[in-house]
């Protein structure tokens, strides 16, 4: 078979898999939106709307909060979109085998799952961003360079956490899924510089360096770079290097684990 035909058939299968996943996601749109939007919006309402009006929190805090809220919503939704179905599929339903029969390599099926995670993250961002902005009225930087940063950071962070979700989804047994949330996700969120810029951590130096192992830090700092460049944020090269590095690492590891789970 000529190469172009193989590529065509592979793309056909890839697009069909994507079509299937988006059809299913669209059917669950309401619960999906509630899942991704409710938590960040309640958080925004209390910390970005109620408490500043009480004077408990300074008004300027919302500028620091908005990029973090957006980063959290996008990264968590792409991670969940990939990891939860995989845990269930490999754990007991074995439904993944239905997709593995498609005429495409196993890595191809894996990359398709990551893309679905990215798409869901973009939808989550598109819902949370305007609502959070309406509640907090943060002054956003609207220059074209910020727009470019915004698109790049959004895509890279979503990809990073979709790939991270694949690693989690392939190594965590279904019985321990709740442990994943308490032991890994909670510290990741609280130590992820979502609610405070990384630079302000200089008051506790050991902590400031310890949180650097957390990939979420770079996603949130990236959104600060893009949305509120006037506020303290990590340097641009450091953000991109870390986002690309972690993405490559988790994509490689996730696809390897995915293949190992898919084959005997």
């Amino acid at each position, binding site marked *: *078979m000529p190469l172009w035909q*193989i590529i065509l*058939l*592979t793309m*056909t*299968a890839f697009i*069909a*898999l994507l*079509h*299937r996943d988006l*059809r*299913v996601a669209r*059917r669950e749109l309401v619960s999906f939106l509630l899942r991704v939007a409710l938590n960040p919006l309640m958080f925004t309402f209390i910390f970005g709307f109620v408490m500043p009006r009480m004077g408990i929190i300074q008004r300027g805090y919302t500028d620091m909060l908005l990029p973090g809220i957006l980063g959290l919503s996008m990264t968590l939704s792409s991670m969940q979109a990939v990891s939860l179905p995989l845990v269930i599929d490999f754990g007991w*339903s*074995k*439904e*993944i*085998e*239905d*997709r*593995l*029969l*498609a*005429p*495409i*390599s196993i890595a191809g099926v894996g990359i398709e799952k990551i893309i679905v995670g990215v798409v869901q993250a973009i939808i989550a961002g598109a819902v949370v961003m305007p609502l959070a902005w309406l509640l907090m009225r943060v002054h956003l930087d609207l220059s074209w360079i910020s727009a470019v940063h915004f698109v790049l950071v959004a895509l890279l962070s979503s990809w990073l956490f979709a790939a991270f979700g694949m690693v989690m989804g392939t190594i965590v047994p279904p019985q321990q899924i709740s442990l994943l949330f308490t032991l890994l996700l909670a510290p990741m969120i609280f130590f992820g510089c979502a609610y405070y810029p990384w630079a302000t951590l200089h008051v506790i130096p050991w902590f400031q360096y310890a949180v650097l192992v957390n990939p979420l830090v770079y996603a949130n700092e990236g959104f600060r770079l893009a949305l509120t460049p006037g506020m303290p944020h990590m340097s641009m090269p450091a953000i991109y290097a870390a986002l690309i590095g972690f993405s490559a690492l988790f994509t490689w590891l996730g696809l390897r684990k995915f293949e190992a789970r*898919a*084959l*005997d």
Partner: protein
Amino acid sequence: METVIAVEDLKKTYRPKGRKGVEVKALDGISFEFSRGEFFGLLGPNGAGKTTTIGILTTRVIPSGGAAKIEGVDVARDPVAVKRRIGVVPQVNNLDRSLTAKEILLFHAEYFGVPRHEREQQADDLLKRFELSDRADEKVNGFSGGMVQRLKIARALMHNPAILFLDEPTTGLDPQSRRMMWELLMELNQKGLTILLTTHYMEEADQLCGRAAIIDHGKLLALDSPAQLKRSVPGGYLVELQVRSDVPQPFVSALQSLPGVVDVKTENNRVRVYADHAEGLLASAMRAAADQDVMITDAHVAEPSLENLFLHLTGRSLRE
């Protein structure tokens, strides 16, 4: 005939994940071939290596040694090309639970690039033929075992594969669904589809398969048509006679001296004659009865079951 599947010295060893545990030799060097249009059976008890064999042929399992080729394509080297040629009906229910029955068929065909109009037509045809039309727009959660099985076969046929693989398709089905499944599979084979099926039911292989390979502990024990396999069992044919009175000893001796007879057993007024072949045996037995003035009230000839064959080949019964 054109060879469609060639399996040569196939081996699979499952290594334990941790340091503890033992290696399991699921396949210990099996070889077989079969041609286009055949209905081929892999017969053996649970754990014999059937599912591993089908797993390797359908690219789900990586062989530890040997080679398997489908239409000349090596399954380990080019799994994607193999996937395009095969339809798979696995043992577990791996139907897409997020989709309706019809969507399952449509999306499967879409993965394989079947044009929209064609796949709509094909899905409607298969749903109708497999008696699933009235449940086409339901998700599969409430489907019975027989319906799930039929839908899995319909899905496997959506992209017109060259070979259909079925892993224990009737396990857990009620007798009526099993019979329906058999008719369906025979019809598909008669229309020219090459089929490989695994089963641990002797009568299933007997009913369906043109040739069957008997495997146990990862080794191939015998490969032939079910009829030939049966003939290979010594004393496999049984003639059972019901006698009006008690069975007289001279009659037993006369039966024992008949050609091909291996053993004669009596039990009250019943005689069981075990023989290597059945031709003329019943007539000879009736003649011996007439000579000895023994009144036969009932006679019955039983062919050797593949069950007996298995016992003969392995020394243990099939459902152990």
